[in-house]
């Protein structure tokens, strides 16, 4: 089953992952088109984070392959450079890492510049643009520790954009961000998806948001439960497979 559409940016083929003999993912196959805005959803322990880590090259699948624009993850460094990754914003507690917004954003450019090379003009422009897109240029010299959750989230997106990726992958991006900021945040994602044609994939446990914002949904519960438009997704049969019998999906009117 080979997909050779030139619009395909991610191809996941027969990916399985076992941990200590337990099956976490079983034969997952799907592809993502360039420019797509996709949500990955599934219950906790359903393997969505594992899938993300496999796509990012952080975990090696037990079987199967992942290709990014035709380059296999784990075999070609080119594959990873196409992806901007925004990790889950973990609470660092009282942990103090002295760094300014600009330093953090610039660190997202590290891999693209490569080892033993200093940032050049091109890199600096990309870093500036990433800060402008995310509207954080105004506090570039502020300490990362003094920012709110929403502001820190923007910095991490700017950091991902600084590497000029074609795909942006976000892991639970709105955890710890208040509701008003959440809405602004999703509007922002939509904007960069439309304006720059950036492929966006995010993992969320928030079903409501997924149904409203994204163009397609991928449901994972050890295996691929469904992959389609949000409207298909809210059909009861899928909800049952994902979360068990009693769950009903209630659409909030906007």
């Amino acid at each position, binding site marked *: 089953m080979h997909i050779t559409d030139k619009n395909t940016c991610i191809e996941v083929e027969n990916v399985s992952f076992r941990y200590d003999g337990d099956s976490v993912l079983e034969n997952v196959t799907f592809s993502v088109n360039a420019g797509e805005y996709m949500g990955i959803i599934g219950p906790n322990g359903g393997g969505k984070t594992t899938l993300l880590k496999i796509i990012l090259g952080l975990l090696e699948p037990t079987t199967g392959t992942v290709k990014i624009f035709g380059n296999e993850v784990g075999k070609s460094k080119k594959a*990873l450079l196409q992806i901007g990754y925004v990790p889950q914003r973990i609470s660092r507690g009282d942990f103090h890492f002295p760094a*300014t917004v600009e330093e953090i954003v610039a*660190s997202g450019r*590290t891999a693209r510049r490569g080892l033993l090379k200093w940032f050049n003009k091109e890199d600096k422009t990309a870093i500036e643009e990433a800060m402008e897109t995310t509207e954080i240029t105004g506090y570039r010299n502020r300490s990362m520790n003094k920012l709110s959750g929403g502001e820190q989230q923007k910095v991490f997106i700017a950091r991902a954009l600084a590497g000029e990726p074609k795909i942006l992958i976000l892991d639970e991006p709105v955890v710890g961000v208040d509701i008003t900021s959440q809405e602004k945040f999703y509007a922002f994602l939509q904007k960069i998806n439309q304006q720059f044609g950036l492929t966006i994939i995010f993992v969320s446990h928030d079903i409501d948001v997924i149904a409203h914002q994204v163009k397609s949904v991928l449901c994972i519960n050890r295996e691929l439960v469904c992959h389609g438009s949000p409207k298909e997704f809210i059909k009861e049969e899928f909800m049952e497979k994902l979360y068990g019998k009693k769950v009903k999906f209630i659409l909030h009117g906007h």
Partner: protein
Amino acid sequence: MLEIFQFDFMIRAFTAGITIAVIAPLIGSFLIVRRYSLMADTLAHVSLLGISVGLITKVNPIGTAIIASVLGAIGIEKLRGGKKISGESALALFLSGSLAIATVVIGLAKGFSVNLFSFLFGSISTVSLIDLYLIIGLGIIVLATIILFYKELFLVSFDEDLAQANGVPAKALNFILVILAAITVSLSIRTIGVLLIGALTVIPVLAAFQYGRSFRQTILLSVIFSLISVISGLFLSFYFALPSGGIIVVVALVIFLLSLAIKKTG
């Protein structure tokens, strides 16, 4: 006052001290933000094992200390990477384990206990010419490596997962960092001493944390604090006949306390 520089051993002590004053907090900054504050201390204990072997076999003890601590650093990273044991436990294991072996080795070769005191607490009169060459040569290598890999070390320290996801060789960089730490610790034995080098990699950095907004600022400031501590410590050591390591760390502590006080009022 400058009679102090009429003595060759003092010139050697100052050259060695200044080299260490620059590299110790640089390494320390990266270790602390990665919550490896005890790494330097652990490697210092491992280097004590190297010293004891060096004293028995009559090989330059700084050389054997470097070999032991580099091997120890690699061992700690391997244990941590294997995920069978947490990073913190790996440090505890190496710290006490190597100290135990060192005391056995020392016990087997009775008779160099006087010499040992200077290794534990530092002594300004013990830096030999060979030591000095080692310290300057390897010190420059440590400094150059940090500068060359600065942007990667920053990324790996701030977000190791992201570094890996971006294809930056995070594991190799971890090894580089701990090996540099091992070398730095061993080079510091003469002037600072095994038991106190951990303090010099940590305390000036903590003081710099009170002021530095950016990481770059913070590490530069930590080097300045460390230089002040080492230079004034060596003077005090000379004029008051005190073990150099102790007085250097006391000065660093005073700077740290001042940084807390001035930060609060400011």
